Structures are given as C-alpha cells and as structure tokens.
C-alpha cells in the first residue's frame, strides 16, 4: 500500500513498503517561484531525519530540502539537472527529488497525513 506523509518544511514522502520517494509540495514550489537549480543526493548517501538532503534554488531564494525520515538514498532524480522546472510543473510526480529506504518506519508516525497537512496550510496562510 502507498501512503503519503508531509513535513512542516513542506516535503512529501510517499512510502511503498520499505522504499519511499521524496519531493517538495505544491505549496512549496508555489512559494519558491520559478526553480532554476536542484541538487539531489547520490545513491548510497545516508541521511537522517531533519538533516539536509537536497538543495533547491529559485529566482527568489536557495533552500535546503530536509530528509523527512532517516535512511539511505537509493536514487537521485537525475532528470532535474537539465529540467529543474519539472518541480514547478509536477512537484508530486516527475518532480520528485530522491528515492530512499527507511531505517525506521516508526519515524513516519511523526509526520502529517493529507488532512493534517491541509489544515496546517490553512493555519499558516491565515
């Protein structure tokens, strides 16, 4: 089964059994504006929950993308190198940042589900 969870820093993580895909939310890309550069981690890199995992740069600002949970990167989205605008056009699809395996699936429980994230967006936009 798949399950998508969200962080307060506007990353999403889609979990499919032991593997997961990570990206930034539609809200994040709309706040950043036109994205001009993305740096994704290499396969094999160990990342820990809350630590820096990737970098995204827009015409407005450069920001870090944090690891939603701990684990090991299995693949970075190489396609973003030439087409960083994919993150703007399809943030939750082709604009994914990296895939990873999870070292502790229990860490997912601390993240928001869809309805909690929607409520969070309403709160910060108020």
């Amino acid at each position: 089964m798949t399950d998508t969870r969200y962080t307060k820093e506007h990353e999403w993580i889609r979990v499919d059994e032991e593997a997961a895909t990570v990206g930034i939310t539609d809200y994040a890309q709309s706040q950043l504006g036109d994205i001009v550069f993305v740096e994704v981690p290499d396969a094999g890199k160990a990342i820990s929950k809350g630590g820096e995992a990737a970098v995204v740069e827009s015409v407005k600002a450069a920001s870090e993308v944090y690891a939603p949970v701990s684990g090991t990167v299995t693949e970075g989205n190489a396609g973003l190198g030439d087409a960083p605008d994919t993150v703007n056009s399809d943030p939750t699809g082709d604009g994914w940042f990296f895939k990873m395996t999870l070292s502790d699936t229990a860490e997912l429980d601390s993240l928001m589900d869809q309805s909690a994230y929607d409520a969070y967006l309403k709160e910060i936009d108020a």
Partner: protein
Amino acid sequence: MTEYSNIETTSGNRGLSFEEPLIFELDSQDSSAVDLDPPSHDMDRLGGLRRRLPVGLPGLSEPEVVRHYTRLSQKNYSIDSGFYPLGSCTMKHNPRLNEKMARLPGLGDIHPFQPESTVQGAYKLMDTLATWLKELTGLPAVALSPAAGAHGELCGIMAIRAAHQAAGNDDRKVVLVPESAHGTNPATAAICGYSVESIPGNGNGRVDVDALTTRLGPDVAAVMITNPNTCGLFENEAKAIADAVHAAGAYFYMDGANFNAIVGRVTLSELGVDAMHINLHKTFSTPHGGGGPGAGPTVLSEALAPFAPLPFLVHDANGLRMVEHSGDKDAPQSFGRMKGYHGQFGVFVRALAYMMSLGIDGLRQASGDAVLNANYLRVRLSEELTPSYDGICMHEALFDDRFLKDTGVSTLDFAKSMIDEGFHPPTMYFPLVVHGALLMEPTETESKATLDQYCETVLALARKAKSGGMAEEFASSPQLTPRRRLDETQAARKPILRWKPEPLKHAAE
C-alpha cells in the same frame, strides 16, 4: 500613459534613451581610433608563427567608443543618480574628497614592490587607519588585508580555527549561526571545514538565546551573529550570548556588515566580540556597488590577535615594517597569508579620508542619522505597509507582504512598480524569516525631502494596490523603462555569458 508606453519606434531608441548594442556588434573593420604607420616587415622575427586569423577586436572610431561607454554609464543606476534604498547594503554617498586623496601621486602612483623606505607615508596611512578601527571597536588588533566582507569573515573564522588548533581543541567541529545572520556566515564556516547548525529566531526578529545556550557544548567552535541583524534589529542579548559562548570555550564572531548603525556608539570589546569584519565600502563611504573593490578589515580580540594573517605592520627602529613571512619573529603563530600584497590600499585611503574629515563627532552623527532615517521610513510607511516587528529599528526598516494580502499584487510586482515612479526598489524577499520581505536602508545620506518624496510614492502605490482590481497593472510594471520585465528564470537556467563571433571564414593565405 499606457498608450505612450506602447509606442514602438523604428530605431528601437525611445526618446533619448538609446538602444545600445554590445561593442563587438558595433564592429566595423574599416574603423580605427588610432592612426599607426604599418609595421616594417624588416622587424618581423616571428618566422612561421605569424598570426593568420584576425585578432577579433572590434573596429570603432574614438567618438563611437566614447559614445558607447557614456551610453552604458547612463543605463547604470547609482547613488550618484538617486536614492538607493537597498537593505543590507549601506549605499551611502561617496564624498569627492576621498577620490581626490586617493589620486594624490604619493598614494596613487606607488607599487607594492617599492622599497619600504620609500613608502613610509603609505604605511603610516595604513597604521593610522588601523588605529581608528581599533579605537572605534575597542579591540586590540586588526587585519587589514581581507578584500571584502565575506573575506573578512573567512579571516575571523580562520583565526578562530587556528586558536583552537593551537590549544589542541580538535573536537570542536560545529559553528552555530542564527537565522537572522547574513547568508555568507554559514558559507564561511563551511569553507573552513565546520559543520553549520542553524539557531532559530525568537519571534521578535532576534536570536533565541535559550535555544543557542542549550546547543552550546564542547563540540562548538564558534557562534556567528550579525549585529545589527538582517531584520534591522539590534541583538540586545549579544553580551549574554558572548558570555555563554566564552563559558563554553567557543569564540564569538560578530558580522559587522551593519556597523553603520552603531559606529561611535557601541564598544564591541564590551560586548565580548572576538572577531568582527568591517566593510569599509559600506560603513566608511568607499565606492560600492560597481563590483568593488571593497575591503573587509577584521578586528580581533587579544585571544585571537596572535593568529592574525600576514602581512601586518610593526613599528621598529627604522619606522614601520611590513611583516610578510611566517618565519618572522613577529609572526610566530600567524595562520598565514590570505591575499596578495597588502590589501585594498586605494580603499584604505578613501575610508581614512572619510573618517578624518568627519571626526569622531561626525561619525557618531552619521550612525545616529542613519538610524533616525530608517525609523522615519518605518513610522511613515506603517500608515499603509506592515512592519514585521514592533518597536525601534536600527539602520533599516523591514516590512512584509501582509499589506498586499488579497490584492493579487506580489512583493515583486510592488517593487517593479516603484521603478516606473523613478525609485530603485528596496531589497526584496530577504531576509527569508519574514514573508515577502521589503527591506529598506536609507542611510544618513538622504534628506528629509527625499525620504518624504519616497514615502509619499510608496504609500500611494500601496493605496493603489489595495484599491482592488489592480493586480494586472502591477504585474505589467515597469512600463516606462528601456526594458520591461526581464526573464529572470531563463537568465538563471540558460544564461548567455559571452558574445561569440560569427564562425570565421578561413583567412586567405
């Protein structure tokens, strides 16, 4: 107004605003600005190495060259042409006296390799500048050589690293940097091999002191704080922070880019500062904004002074002497050299001319007027804009985009519309800790008349945005400029960084 802005001209020129191509595009190979006799072939000793292809330099007459560069200079916006309210930038007037001093033959026409005995006057000038900087900060040493602000940060963190290494503190691997610090601070720490940890703000635009002190420990090498910070606020707890940092065995780096707000009013040694860079090109009125050169002298505490970089001046029996090598008896612990020659000497001359012509009373008045001007903007603009934090600010006033809520106008649109009104926009979307930031630093340069004209314009634009249905008009600004909105995205994604000639036809043998 809209109709006129839509007129297309045949030439591309608009009024007396010229459409100026690149100088290579003006090339005409039958033009030349010099008249030289053809070289005598008797002198040709190149043998088979004689160039076969054209050199590729553009051919222009002298009036064409003069017009080209004059027109380019007219496209430039500078503090000499108008108010320049960029925040975090300190764009102040550059007195012409500074330029006159820098061009004196004894200062302008010397060479770094001249014998020391012939440049004692230049050394005296550097020594006097160093004395002023030490007096103004209360710190006992200063490294003059850093070339600009971030280089000065690098100097400070390298001195801190050298001090830790000398003491055998190899376990200190972390530098703490609050959210309200300059972006170059974490970059500096990372370049020096430290891992950087961010410290959150406290909701009042300042460092969360509890979060900072909780994080301090035996792995922390230094804390870097920008003060006044990028929200334009004084870090009131700086002394408490410094005490906690020192108790934990770490050093306190203060980013002095915003020194203009506190010159002559705060003694940094009393705040517990171990190292701080001073941007001469911001605070002390040397030209800034044309890409430099800047200068970022870094003052150092007694604990860090022995590690100061080369070169530096010492007094000895023959006058002033430049200590240039790590083997010198006066530099047993220096971390080495970080710049060729002696630093940005021309900037030193200008900065000292500014200091000496203002005097300490004038410097105190300048910092006071800078703060007064920023607060004048903050209070007057609060009528329509939304200031991010309550209370008195320092040298710059910070607003966010709450005043544009539901208008459909973004901070970017608002800033662009200011250009049509003849004002350079303020810094926008920085600092990141507030949403849709507009950061304005008027400096002491501006008169009340200029500030009033600016405020009335900004207030009128804000009222216009709020009147409803204006989103499209704001989004289409600027309308009266030689170019409209530039495609920033394409410029970042697919920049064209150099002009390339048409492919050359093979030159005839």
